[in-house]
């Protein structure tokens, strides 16, 4: 029996009118394979770029502007979230030239706290404001029924979340039920719709550490793009390995190919495990040399990170003063 899938706009345009489980599967399984050794070699090569002086200064500021400052703990409290928001707005109180981060990323029930704490500073990072991103769809495992996931999403959007970080159903993906994964993304995307008809931006978390192979990552990337994801995101941060440079490179290649095909822009968000400026700069280089530096803007590239910000601040201080300070010269959250 042919399972007819929801006619998501992108998928229909690419695969034709009769969007079915089979046509989706044929497309995903027809994607060119990934040679792991070659991919990792290319990523390692990009990692050897030497970014100095003016380029480094620009890169450090840009990294801050691309950060989703994140707290995703069972122990999150309103106090903790307010503190995170304060840090997002003024990362380095000793240096008012420090840019703000792109967004704060919290659990859905903390969205009202974050929105309240941001006040007038809540908005589009392009306008110098800070967005609120909420993880949803039974984050991080994604093991809940679709109605629960949809309610989870609607809740966060209604509370003022600008961006939804959903997880795909890895179990369904690994079982070969691509159609299920696809339909869930389409449904969650629809749940991102606000009353005024606009949509919260949808980041689709692949949890690449659980998909395990690069071929799977490529297929999941295409699936998520076809289903309407605005961003594809590597990881929840709760599974190891989280973001790696080769995986991010592979996902960037997918959005690059989508752009070649359609002219449309899809974002990429590596999350989890990026802790140092040095590592983050490697990601900037990889973005610039794979999809072009126009991708280095908050609507197309984000870092999901918590401790990265402080390392960038220390590096910034070093560039300004000429010497290294220490962890006591940046605030802990």
């Amino acid at each position, binding site marked *: 029996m042919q399972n007819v899938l929801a006619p998501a706009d992108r998928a229909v345009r690419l695969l034709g009118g009769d969007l079915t489980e089979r046509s989706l599967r044929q497309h995903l399984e027809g994607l060119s394979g990934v040679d792991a050794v070659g991919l990792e070699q290319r990523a390692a090569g990009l990692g050897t770029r030497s970014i100095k*002086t003016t380029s480094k200064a620009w890169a450090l500021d840009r990294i801050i502007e691309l950060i989703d400052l994140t707290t995703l703990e069972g122990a999150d409290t309103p106090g903790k979230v307010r503190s995170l928001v304060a840090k997002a707005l003024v990362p380095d109180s000793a240096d008012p030239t420090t840019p703000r981060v792109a967004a704060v990323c919290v659990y859905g029930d903390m969205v009202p706290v974050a929105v309240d704490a941001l006040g007038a500073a809540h908005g589009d990072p392009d306008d110098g404001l800070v967005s609120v991103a909420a993880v949803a769809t039974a984050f991080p495992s994604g093991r809940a029924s679709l109605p629960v996931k949809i309610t989870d999403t609607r809740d966060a959007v209604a509370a003022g979340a600008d961006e939804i970080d959903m997880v795909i159903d890895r179990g369904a993906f690994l079982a070969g039920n691509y159609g299920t994964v696809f339909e869930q993304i389409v449904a969650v995307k629809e749940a991102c719709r606000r009353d005024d008809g606009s949509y919260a931006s949808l980041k689709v978390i692949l949890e690449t550490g659980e998909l395990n192979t690069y071929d799977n990552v490529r297929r999941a990337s295409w699936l998520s793009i076809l289903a309407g994801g605005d961003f594809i995101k590597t990881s929840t941060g709760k599974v190891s390995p989280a973001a790696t440079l080769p995986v991010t490179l592979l996902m960037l290649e997918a959005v690059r190919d989508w752009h070649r095909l359609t002219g449309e822009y899809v974002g990429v968000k590596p999350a989890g495990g990026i802790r140092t400026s040095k590592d983050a700069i490697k990601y900037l280089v990889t973005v610039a040399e794979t999809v072009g530096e126009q991708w280095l803007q908050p609507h197309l590239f984000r870092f999901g990170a918590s401790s990265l910000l402080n390392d960038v601040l220390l590096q910034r201080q070093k560039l300004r003063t000429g010497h290294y300070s220490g962890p006591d010269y940046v605030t802990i959250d």
Partner: protein
Amino acid sequence: MKDIQPTDGRGFLEYAPAPESTAILHLKDSYGLFIDGEFRDGSGGSFSTISPATEKKIAEIAIASEADVDLAVAAARRAYTKTWSKLSGADRGKYLFRIARLVQERARELAVAESLDNGKPIKESRDVDVPLVAAWFFYYAGWADKLDHAGLGANPRALGVAAQVIPWNFPLLMLAWKIAPALAAGNTVVLKPAETTPLSALLFAEILQQADLPPGVVNIVTGAGETGATLVRHPDVDKVAFTGSTGVGREIAKAVAGTHKKVTLELGGKAANIVFDDAPIDQAVEGIVNGIFFNQGHVCCAGSRLLVQENIHDEVVDRLKQRLSTLRLGDPLDKNTDIGAINSREQLERIRTLSDIGEQEGAERWSVPCEIPENGFWFAPTIFTGVTTSSRIAREEIFGPVLSVLTFRTPAEAIAKANNTPYGLSAGIWSDKGSKILAVADQLRAGVIWANTFNRFDPASPFGGYKESGYGREGGRHGLAAYLKGASA
């Protein structure tokens, strides 16, 4: 989601200069010949070695006359008879291990010297050439006391004095490929580096002094082709090893014909890099780039003929052009440089001439739009599409950053086209299907075949050619056979 407008960015990709410091180099104004463990003046005059990136003079280098070559061969003979042939394999190994460690200790210095003199990007001399040099000495150091177990029969003996002539594309690495197995097998050496790139060999001579290698075991004579010709013709030489052009290789083969000298020749190539439609496409594009633009294409085993399956030709070429546009051409000492300088004016002329011929013959030329520095020798990475098997740029070795793209329809045609060349040094196969790779590799007449990668080297792996690409193997156990008596090469 908000509408996204393409922006120009702020020029992040114009990475700020990141030059490797030359402060680590302590060069002399002039270098003599390294004979019998010390530097001495040559009697054949001198020449300047320049940096091909700036055309500035680096140092004055002695030219070895016939008399100097005589002295060097005599020193090697003496060292062979009196010292080196009497040492145990374990003791020879100790010297080789010591040399390997000193190469590692002075790696940065050697890398800077190599990039300065040769024009290759520092990232390649630092990450490829010099680490491989150390690896080669470590590898053959391990063999020195195990020659009985190399599968060449019991108690294999050294040949005696080896005359070695090396090219300018990998000056120090080719030196290591030649010297390490020769010494491990118990021979002594007279080596002539290429005229345009003598510098790293002379720094290597300093390393030999540091390692206390007995005088005369390795001698280094500098000069032009004439010095090399004198060396390989010398009657007291037992072995000739040459890496370079097929033309010179032929001359050498004639010169040593009828003598007792054993010969290995590693010559030119026009390798096919075969991309099937089931290849991992992004990695294949990387491999094509690495295959022909690594070391400015100055690689004998470069994948200079891209054979791409016709049904993916346009897509591959399109992706290739996009990728090539991110390559950075410029100062070899900048850590972000991907494409350095062409080694010499002469070589640049050859590349230009052959490229012009390619255009005249009707192939479509595309070069990376990039700024070319004012001084020095440069050639922008170039690809030719619409090349036919009869085009000269598909037949002759260009030895530069120029790729000829041809198409094929079936595996059988790919094999036929790949083999349709007087050369046979290397080949590449790109496919996600293992059985296809093995079946095609089995029918390619090339000494080295890479599958889903290109231009990877390891001391344990033998390297050498079929047909006009030469004979004999370097590297691995096979590389020892070329320097031992009674063993089949």
